[in-house]
Structures are given as C-alpha cells and as structure tokens.
C-alpha cells in the first residue's frame, strides 16, 4: 500500500526553529545566522562588529565549531556574553543546539543574537536556526564562482558580505563578477563589501544591522493618535 505524504525531512528541526523564532520575535531580538567557508572571516567580522558597539548594548554571540573554544575566547574579549557550541563532529549547527545553548541564558534580554555557524558552505544551509536573517560571507581569496558552486547557500541568504577587500590589489579576484554571480542566484540579495583588517565598509555593515534590528522590534499596539489617524 502506498501512502502519500508531504512531510519535510527536517520537520523536527523546523518545529524547534519556529519556536525559537517566535521567542526572538516576541522579545524583539534580531537573530543573525552567519555562514561561510572556513577562513572567510566570520569571527573577524564579529570581532570588528562587537568592538564598535557601546558596551551597554545587549548583544550576545553563539559560535559553533567542530572542536575548540578558540572563537569564543577571541570574542569574549569585548565584554559581551559569548557561548561556544562545540558540535564534536557535526559540520553545522541545528535548531536543537541553539535551543540547548539558550536554555539557561536570558535570551529575551538581547537586542542582537549573532550565531556564527560552523565553517562550511553546504550543510548549514539546510538547517533553520530560527534566525531573522542569514548572512553569507565570501572573501576575495576565494573564487568569484562560489555563488554558482554553492547556489543553495546564496539562494537562502539575505545579505552577502564580501570580506578582505583590502587584498583586492594583490589577488586576481573580480569583485563585480562575484556580485553578479550572487545576484544570479538570489536577485534580492544585499551585498556589502568590507575589510575587517582596515575597517573599510564596516560602517555600512553596522547600518545594515541597525536597520534589521529596527525591523525586529516587537509590534506594539498603535498609539491612540495613530489609531485615530488610521480611522480618518
């Protein structure tokens, strides 16, 4: 007997991710999932991002690696709460790992929760972590055709951060070709060019973050005058 089904293979992960997303939404937390190959500069981007924030801001980081807590130690220097998720072999984070990491953390107090995924351009793509937005990093020491070679990752990304642009004079990388390739896969993708070494482009990156954060604020009931305005 053949039983037709429409069951998503990762429906248990998706269920936990939906619960996390609901939790983030209700508290106005902007959760960003950072994905890239190893060595594209996820941790460096987070270092430069954290050092630019007022220490009073409520920012937190979950950082995933197969082994070591090196990234958490690098990021903890900036005084914001950081927690390492060591996957012990798994090449990606999943929603249950995020749920466990947040179990005894006051996640509702965070304005931004950065989730640095395991360095891998394939497997993290399939796993929804409950994030509000997904950023993919590409660096100029890689190939311009990476968006074409890993289309799933770029297709699901909201923003591409092109990192290490200070090296452009020394490498044959053609930034315009890389950007065109990313837009062929995901025409709506935003693209930000940065250098975590010189700081170039980081202001635009921070502006992008602040814009996303404003969008993540919990929806409050309209003020009385707004409601009246609406009725007119």
């Amino acid at each position, binding site marked *: *007997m*053949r*039983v*037709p*089904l*429409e*069951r*998503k*293979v*990762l*429906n*248990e*992960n998706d269920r936990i991710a939906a619960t996390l997303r609901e939790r983030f939404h209700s508290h106005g937390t902007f959760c960003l999932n950072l994905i890239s190959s190893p060595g594209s500069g996820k941790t460096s981007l987070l270092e430069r991002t954290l050092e630019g924030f007022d220490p009073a801001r409520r920012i937190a980081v979950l950082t995933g690696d197969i082994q070591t807590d090196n990234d958490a130690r690098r990021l903890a220097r900036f005084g914001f709460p950081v927690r390492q998720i060591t996957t012990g072999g*798994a090449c*990606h984070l*999943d929603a249950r790992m995020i749920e466990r990491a947040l179990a005894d953390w006051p996640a509702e107090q965070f304005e931004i929760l950065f989730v640095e995924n395991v360095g891998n351009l*394939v*497997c993290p*793509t*399939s796993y929804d972590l409950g994030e509000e937005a997904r950023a993919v990093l590409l660096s100029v020491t890689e190939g311009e055709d990476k968006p*074409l070679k*890993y*289309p*799933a*990752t770029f*297709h*699901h990304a909201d923003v591409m951060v092109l990192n290490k642009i200070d090296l452009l004079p020394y490498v044959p990388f053609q930034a315009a070709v890389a950007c065109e*390739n990313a*837009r*062929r*896969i995901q*025409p709506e993708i935003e693209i930000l060019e940065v250098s975590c070494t010189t700081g170039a482009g980081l202001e635009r990156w921070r502006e992008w973050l602040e814009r996303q954060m404003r969008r993540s604020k919990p929806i409050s009931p309209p003020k009385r005058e707004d409601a009246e305005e609406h009725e007119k």
Partner: protein
Amino acid sequence: MSIAAAVLDAVRAETALRPGARATRAGLRIGELSGVETESLRFCLETLVSGTDLDPLAFDFEFCPWTRRCRACAITFRVADYNPACSSCGSADTEAAGGAQMELSYLELEEP
C-alpha cells in the same frame, strides 16, 4: 549523515502511525537548491538502514528543479544557466518558486 538520520526518523514516525505496518519503500523529493547530493544521501541511508529494523528499506528519489515565478506574466519556469530572468517574457521581476524541497513524499507499507 544527519539528514539521512532525519529521513529515517520521519519514516519511523509515519510507520508508527499505522500499527503493525512495515515500510518497504520510501519516496524522497529532493530539490536542486536543497544542498543535498542524492547519491551521497542514498549511500548514507543504506548505511544507516543496514542491519536495523528498517532493513531492507528501498528509496526512490524525485528530483525537483530550481524554478522561479514571473511577476509580469505569472508563469513558473525552470532556471537555466543561473539566469533568474523569465524564460518567456524576459522580465527580471521574478520570485523564488521551487527547488529547495527535502521531503518524504510517500511510503510503501506492508500491513499485517
């Protein structure tokens, strides 16, 4: 491998809804943009099934192409050569339609 494990969890969960039934074949729908390579997934599935209660479960894969929908002429088209523009009218105003699927589409069951 974790996707293969999730497939088998889904097979077991769906089979358990029908007491006494035994799954003999599972249909999987895999999209071009899912990030899953079907032959690798088949290898992982066969490895995980071997010697378990599910052995000898067979798998069928249905490939789902990468498609976009045109907002101008409303057709859904297959994306070729990474070109997101409409294959019919040429409009660049298109949106994602399909290709990300990773679904258990059917089970063949033997019932007592």
